[in-house]
């Protein structure tokens, strides 16, 4: 295949990544030839595709490559650890350490034993850094690693696959119900310097098992930080997985992430993605329903202000008959913020009796805020129930008037209505402390902006 690459628009950072890979001994370590083969293919694919430019169909509303080129350069690829004694104090408010949960913390891509706390027994769940699992759980890892997230489909997945060295490996064995949630924190400490990290996670949810799993992203420090993450989730037959992705990022935080899910028969997967801040965030949530009688729920809330830009791309791929998927993404855009939503539903030939529903609702609070929303349904089967809808508007004037006639100030009435709008998504979070933390943050933001 030949590719025509416009020399002018080539990203400097892309070149830096390629050079870095070329010169890195560590990434070529033959310790695992399995991994090296993957890396080689991935960097080749990355070189072919390049970082997506503004004409790229999937990235045309999110100029992430330009933003990365502007904020990062080749020096940021080699990370020397600079100890930061204040870090613990600064991240503490975010960590839900005082609850009965498994806490796993990664700081600048490195597993932090010091901040982590595993409370579930190894019989119920295997939870360890991916680097360790590559050695200790070689067979299981090699069976599933990089099998779902396709390096051809997205340059950032290819990039991650070429560079990823650490992340979380989670395995819930057959029949185990993990009653203590797993809270994974990916923290970028940019106090001393710019930081680029590429965490890679593999979550194997065994047959007839159950687990709650949350990934949270924070940046500490004023320098720009970038996380390019890939999480692969394999939900086995009859398993239940509740997955949460929480982004309460810094003003200088850039994020690209792909969560790739494969569901087996009779499995249930619930995803809730909440983005409250950051510079530019792109979330890909790709779910393959690879069997019959799968059930999937995707909820999303992006509540943005200032210049935050959040882009959610979701794909649910009904490959076989009799599965159900439901999607609800809601956005509130204030100030100059920008939201992007693209929801694809594929119903493959033969995936009869599919039920697939999608809804995207947006509120724009200012003339400068914007949303680009695009539902995309591709249906090749003829006996299915599918629907989609997207709405964009302001706060309902009639509702606002009603509350004001009861004595509520205009701003209070607005806050109550916005909270209710957001609650529709937040109430799907089944991990109570996590839900309460988000409710608290949202209430504080409404209070600040609308004196609730």
């Amino acid at each position, binding site marked *: 295949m030949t590719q025509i690459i416009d020399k002018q628009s080539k990203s400097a950072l892309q070149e830096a990544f390629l050079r870095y890979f070329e010169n890195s001994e560590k990434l070529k370590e033959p310790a695992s030839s399995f991994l090296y083969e993957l890396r080689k293919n991935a960097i080749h694919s990355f070189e072919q595709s390049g970082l997506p430019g503004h004409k790229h169909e999937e990235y045309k509303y999110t100029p992430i490559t330009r933003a990365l080129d502007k904020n990062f350069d080749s020096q940021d690829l080699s990370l020397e650890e600079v100890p930061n004694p204040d870090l613990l104090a600064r991240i503490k408010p975010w960590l839900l350490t005082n609850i009965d949960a498994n806490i796993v913390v990664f700081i600048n891509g490195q597993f932090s034993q010091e901040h982590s706390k595993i409370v579930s027994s190894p019989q119920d769940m295997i939870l360890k850094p991916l680097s360790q699992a590559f050695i200790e759980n070689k067979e299981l890892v090699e069976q599933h690693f990089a099998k779902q997230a396709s390096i051809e489909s997205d340059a950032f997945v290819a990039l991650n696959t070429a560079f990823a060295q650490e992340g979380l490996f989670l395995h819930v064995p057959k029949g185990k119900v993990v009653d203590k949630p797993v809270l994974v924190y990916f923290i970028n400490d940019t106090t001393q310097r710019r930081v680029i990290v590429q965490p890679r996670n593999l979550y194997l949810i065994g047959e007839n098992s159950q687990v709650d799993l949350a990934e949270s992203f924070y940046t500490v420090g004023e320098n720009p930080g970038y996380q390019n993450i890939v999480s692969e989730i394999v939900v086995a037959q009859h398993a239940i997985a509740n997955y949460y992705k929480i982004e309460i990022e810094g003003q200088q935080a850039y994020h690209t992430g792909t969560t790739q899910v494969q569901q087996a028969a009779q499995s249930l997967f619930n995803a809730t993605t909440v983005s409250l801040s950051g510079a530019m965030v792109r979330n890909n949530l790709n779910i393959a329903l690879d069997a019959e009688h799968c059930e999937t729920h995707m909820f999303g809330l992006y509540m943005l202000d200032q210049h935050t830009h959040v882009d959610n791309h979701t794909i649910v791929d009904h490959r076989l008959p009799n599965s159900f998927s439901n999607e609800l993404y809601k956005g509130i855009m204030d100030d100059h913020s920008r939201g992007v939503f693209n929801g694809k539903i594929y119903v493959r030939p033969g995936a009869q009796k599919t039920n697939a529903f999608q809804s995207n609702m947006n509120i724009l609070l200012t003339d400068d805020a914007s949303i680009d929303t695009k539902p995309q349904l591709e249906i090749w089967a003829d006996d299915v129930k599918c629907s989609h809808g997207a709405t964009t508007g302001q706060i*309902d004037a*009639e*509702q606002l*008037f*009603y*509350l*004001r*006639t*009861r*004595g*509520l*100030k*205009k701003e*209070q*009435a607005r806050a*109550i*209505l916005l*909270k*209710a*709008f957001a*609650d*529709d998504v937040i109430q799907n979070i089944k991990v109570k402390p996590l839900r309460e933390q988000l409710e608290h943050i949202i209430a504080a933001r409404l209070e600040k902006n609308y004196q609730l």
Partner: protein
Amino acid sequence: MLTIKNLKARVEDKEILKGINLEVRAGEIHAIMGPNGSGKSTLASVLAGREDFEVTEGSVEFLGNDLLDMAPEDRAREGVFLAFQYPVEIPGVSTTNFLKTALNQIRQHRGQDPLDAVSFLKLMKEKMKLVEIDQSLINRSLNEGFSGGEKKRNEIFQLAMLEPKLAILDETDSGLDIDALRIVANGVNKLKTKDNATIVVTHYQRLLEYIIPDYVHVLYNGRIVKSGTKELALELEEKGYDWIKDTTATTV
């Protein structure tokens, strides 16, 4: 308490109120009747502060203040309450959700201390009994999936909670069966004191069998064309609105 003088209002280019004059004193119940499109609901909305209507002329004085100059929330705090003809649905917001904030705002405005959670609950229980409304209803998303009767009862429940000086009931009887009508009317009657006043906006006389008005006004084509006592309502019921239309036609 309320003095309306030559009130004219329009929506876009259409003049709907064409010079309303009305005086309501404390302790009184006024009924405003009229055929569809006569401007009854517009009058109620203008008094509550709906911004879709533009007041072009006239004045409304409420307890010595210029009502038209106030934001809807300030009117509420001064003691005006509108029971909506079509109460809006608000998903995710229950009556209990916003009522505590609303009540405490109003109390603060009156120089009263805010109610704590316990006193608020106690007050709610008391008022719930008054309008025979169920706890589950006021905990549900406001008006979402409510029957017509439940919506109206919820309006009267809020009226009971907020204890306004002037209550405006905009076609509260529409869509109510006779039992619900009795309950709603009974609630309104129990809330009546010598210090507050009520304006009942209605198309039919039926509600006025339960809420006995001191005065009845007939609104037609944006003007009050006839005023009288409760007997006028009966006459109107008997003769129909055509009678009014005919009489006004001959006087013009």
